[in-house]
């Protein structure tokens, strides 16, 4: 049964055009791709507004004190979307922007998947999918045991939630009434091999999360105002974890890459490709 919070669905019919900040962050993604000559393009672009709103408006953190005990914890479970996280962390001063140019280089701190202990601000080493929600359950239990008010946000990919471990963790989170835990699903509807509806259909996705006793809302994942409104309402219901299904576009902002599984990851990003990517962001 839908709760009153779930009835207040904050979805706008059309995504507003990208503003300058969203374009700026996407340019940093392209800069990072250029540095590494490779990377998960579509998987990072769909995350930008989610990451932006979390780090601009929602999360409590100290860039110069990344292990501050009372910080909110943000775990990027879809580790392959790490460029979106890296650009936010660099933008906020966790490490210098120049580090983006070293992406995937031999001695870089920034690998193709994020590593805790190596990258300031990265909470957990992810990349193997289906791990982040379980780790977040443990973190949420721990901060509750320690009577701290830190929130735990875990961002999952849609392809990622094919993994059975995600649903083990979901049952556990609900059992423990982890209202300090929020699962954010980047529902861009395209996984590595193609559309999720063809590879492994997730629908009815919101009903699944509700069935697992998460208070569940859906939102346009590129609508900054809508995202702010949802995140500022957390927890939507006391004593229950929250799931926010963000409807997003794979490759958002790069017209020729949008909704195209071929742009999930690119391993040969040369100067011509970089120029095309920058060009698309100026359109």
């Amino acid at each position, binding site marked *: 049964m839908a709760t009153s919070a779930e009835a207040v669905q904050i979805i706008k019919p059309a995504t507003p055009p990208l503003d300058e900040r969203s374009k700026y962050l996407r340019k940093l993604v392209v800069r990072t791709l250029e540095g590494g000559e490779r990377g998960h393009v579509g998987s990072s672009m769909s995350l930008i507004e989610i990451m932006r709103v979390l780090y601009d408006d929602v999360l409590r953190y100290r860039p110069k004190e990344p292990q501050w005990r009372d910080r909110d914890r943000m775990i990027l479970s879809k580790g392959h979307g790490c460029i979106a996280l890296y650009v936010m962390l660099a933008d906020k001063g966790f490490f210098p922007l120049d580090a983006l140019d070293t992406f995937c280089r031999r001695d870089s701190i920034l690998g193709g998947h994020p590593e*805790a*202990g190596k990258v300031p601000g990265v*909470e*957990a*080493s992810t990349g*193997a999918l*289906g*791990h982040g*929600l*379980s*780790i*977040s*359950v*443990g*973190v*949420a*239990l*721990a*901060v509750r*045991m*320690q009577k701290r008010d830190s929130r735990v946000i875990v961002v999952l990919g849609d392809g990622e939630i094919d993994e*059975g*471990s995600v649903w*083990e*963790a979901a*049952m*556990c989170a609900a059992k423990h009434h982890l209202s300090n835990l929020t699962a954010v699903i980047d529902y861009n509807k395209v996984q590595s091999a193609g559309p999720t509806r063809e590879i492994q259909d997730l629908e009815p996705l919101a009903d699944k999360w509700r069935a697992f006793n998460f208070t569940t809302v859906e939102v346009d994942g590129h609508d900054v105002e809508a995202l702010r409104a949802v995140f500022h309402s957390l927890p939507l219901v006391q004593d229950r974890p929250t799931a926010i299904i963000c409807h997003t576009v794979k490759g958002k902002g790069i017209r020729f890459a949008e909704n195209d599984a071929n742009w999930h990851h690119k391993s040969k990003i040369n100067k011509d490709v970089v120029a095309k990517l920058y060009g698309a962001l100026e359109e």
Partner: protein
Amino acid sequence: MRQTCLNMVYDLAKRDERVVFAGSDLSPGLLADMKREMPDRWYMEGITEQNLIGMTAGLAKEGYIPYANTIATFITRRCYEQVAVDLCLHDLPVRLIGNGGGLVYAPLGPTHLAIEDIAIMRALPNMTVTCVCDAREMVRLMNATLDWPHPIYIRLAKGGDPVVSREELGFAIGKAIPMRRARSRRSAVLMSTGVMTTNSLAAADLLVKDGIDTSVVHFHTIKPLDKETALDFARDAELVVTVEEGIRIGGFGSAITDVLVEHLGTAAPKVKRLGLPDEFPHNYGLQDDLFDIYGLMPNQIAASVVRRCK
């Protein structure tokens, strides 16, 4: 041994607020006192080993020392990637307590036999692998786990195992214990782990009648392996026999032979590794029945030594 191990979790939890217990669908009433006295540090989760490991990783990340417990096969095989990534890559102090290591669950068949747990756990960077021989030694191990900064696999034996360990010989993670020293350095050496140390000591007694003076070195820690003690006993030995309750591929005997080959080269003594061949056991019965099938009973261990000493 299992009960002692769990009692120690409770004991450690009383001493240290960082200690948390997390089980996966274990017996009703398990650690009932701990549950009653410290309910926020006692978790009994469903049959969700992958989640259990990730959850304990999250707890450890925030400063807790979780002791996770279920059947050995399930806490190693079922959630291997979580153990590798969530625990070992992050190098978190989670303790994995595996019930029924080796051939304990003989009547339950191969799905429940943890035959390769030592091999797959020791392959993981940052993982510590332990296999004590009796309940008294389990107490000493558990005391040592509290401040060990890495993940630990704790392999449990059947329970009610004869006590052969001796407190006066000391205990430190990563330090092997010579349980019996031959009078002559030119002798046979049995190197064993877990309850195979009990069988090896009994084998050494039998070998006296054959005139073979035998040392027994107990490795309660398989990783990090005590290379110095292994080399010290192997250097002048005529024969080294390793004894383990698990497959030989990648197991304890492999760890020992790696050290001997690397450090002694062609000067290494003859080595025989006793353990399971590259197969799933096909029989049921009791643990001792499978020991018998695989040549791990004391008289069989002794016979292996005799054959190679002649």
